[in-house]
């Protein structure tokens, strides 16, 4: 009885949920339509309306059901798929190929992505320049705007960026949900430090070679975005690495472990975001008085961010991406969203409402462009 009451505490009535969705409704309406919905092109109008409804229905259900992760994941996965669709579609239209040419590099036309940021730091400090063949301010995915978006998102969400803002994370998040039970259950704790080792290597190698080495040699998401045209043994090796890492870390291992293995064991930006978890206002807290140490939360955490020791100590580790899976799994509401400075076990609803609004708003607006574009493409394909 006690448990039921606690879970019910996170749920809201239909009317209250609508009320909580209203600000999201208005803000996303303004951003998606610019205040003036345009239905002159029915396909565009319908795509926009679908994206708008999708975002707001998901947000409404987060409040109405009291569950976070399942609704976050829907938008997060659609975001990842739609971004890849948008990029590939653009490339096929402009270049007739998913690969970029030497001319694209020479003319600095490569879209910038946040994964380059760790590699930019040392060269920017020592040579006062950016080692990426993209555009500083103009055009699609320019360096300045991507840096601003990442900087603010990381400051506000910390590693929450990896579950609420990263347009790649949805890939392994999606694959990690395919099976009901994991095939591989035990993976050494050591591996979760791998992103820091990768970070160390790519930061140093990028500085020494003046090349974004992660993008050139490692990034698994090149397989679903764009990569260098295969013209030599070197570029073939690179393509082989991209495809095998995508197949292994983004598809096979997440399916077998039910964990986000690319994000847990490879991504160097995840390592930096983990460190920023120390300053962000939003955290996940453990109410030790309510916790009965069932460790369900440890089992469901997709990023190996929770251990039994963490639960006993009453603290989540810096790897937490605030996805909400553990929060949803806890029948006693002992693990919950919190705000730094507020003691655990108190102001749970306030903290959750504020966090959800901030994080979901970021994801909704950030993803809206590519989602509308994808829906538009699909509608054109169907009709």
């Amino acid at each position, binding site marked *: 009885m006690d448990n039921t009451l606690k879970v019910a505490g996170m749920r809201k009535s239909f009317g209250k949920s609508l009320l909580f969705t209203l600000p999201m409704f208005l*803000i996303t309406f303004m*951003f998606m339509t610019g205040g003036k919905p345009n239905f002159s092109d029915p396909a565009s109008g319908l795509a926009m309306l679908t994206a708008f409804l999708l975002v707001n229905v998901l947000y409404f259900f987060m409040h109405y059901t009291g569950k976070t992760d399942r609704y976050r994941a829907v938008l997060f996965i659609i975001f990842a798929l739609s971004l890849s669709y948008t990029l590939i579609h653009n490339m096929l239209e402009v270049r007739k190929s998913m690969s970029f*040419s*030497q*001319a694209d*590099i*020479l*003319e*600095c036309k490569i879209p910038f992505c946040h994964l380059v940021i760790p590699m930019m730091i*040392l*060269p*920017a*400090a*020592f*040579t*006062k*320049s*950016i*080692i*990426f*063949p*993209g555009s*500083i*301010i103009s055009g699609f995915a*320019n*360096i*300045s*705007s991507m*840096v*601003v*978006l990442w900087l*603010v998102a990381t*400051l*506000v969400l910390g590693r929450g960026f990896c579950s609420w803002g990263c347009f790649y994370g949805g890939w392994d998040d999606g694959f990690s949900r395919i099976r009901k039970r994991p095939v591989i259950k035990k993976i050494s704790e050591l591996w979760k430090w791998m992103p820091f080792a990768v970070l160390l290597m790519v930061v140093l190698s990028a*500085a*020494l070679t*003046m090349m974004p080495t992660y993008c050139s040699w490692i990034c698994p998401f090149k397989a679903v975005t764009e990569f260098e045209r295969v013209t030599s043994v070197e570029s073939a090796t690179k393509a082989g690495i991209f495809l095998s890492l995508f197949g292994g870390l983004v598809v096979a291992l997440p399916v077998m472990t039910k964990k986000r293995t690319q994000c847990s064991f490879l991504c160097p930006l995840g390592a930096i975001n983990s460190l920023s978890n120390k300053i*962000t*206002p*939003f955290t996940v807290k453990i109410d030790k008085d309510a916790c009965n140490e069932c460790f369900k939360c440890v089992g469901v955490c997709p990023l190996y961010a929770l251990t039994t020791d963490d639960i006993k100590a009453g603290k989540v580790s810096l790897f937490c991406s605030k996805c909400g899976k553990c929060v949803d799994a806890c029948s006693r509401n002992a693990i919950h969203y919190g*705000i*730094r*400075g*507020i*003691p655990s076990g108190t102001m749970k609803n306030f903290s959750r409402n*504020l966090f959800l*609004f*901030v994080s979901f*708003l*970021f994801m909704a*607006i950030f993803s809206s462009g590519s989602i509308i574009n994808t829906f538009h493409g699909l509608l054109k394909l169907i009709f």
Partner: protein
Amino acid sequence: MKKVKIIAGISWAIFCLILILILFPGLNSFSGSVSKLPFMKLNPRYTGGEIANQVIQERCTLDIRKPVFNGFLKERTSGFVQLDWHGTIPEMIKDSIDYDHDGNMDFCILVDRKNSKTVLDPISKKVKGVVISTPTSYGWAVRIGLLK
């Protein structure tokens, strides 16, 4: 102290909420400010370097850029010089280049655009070989590897 911590925490969270609310409407303005930071310029290894000399030819223009030896802490011993042809470019490009402006030609270059073939005839010992030779949206670009 507990109350101070709570107030500080909530204030920080509210500040972050405001930050997210103004982020997207102000993105162009924020990006504009960030782009003006001293380190927000592309490394010459990517831009090809500044244009050092412009040669006006019959129907096209050849830009000879400054040699790039840019490294992390100090200049490297090997680098490149980039040449860009734009305008109405002939099928066969043939030019002699003095990239270091010492009055002596350093190399001759022949680009057969139709067959995408580039032949380099090095005169100076500092000239290593063709790094890149590719059609571009503005014409044709070539990077020649150099030793310092």
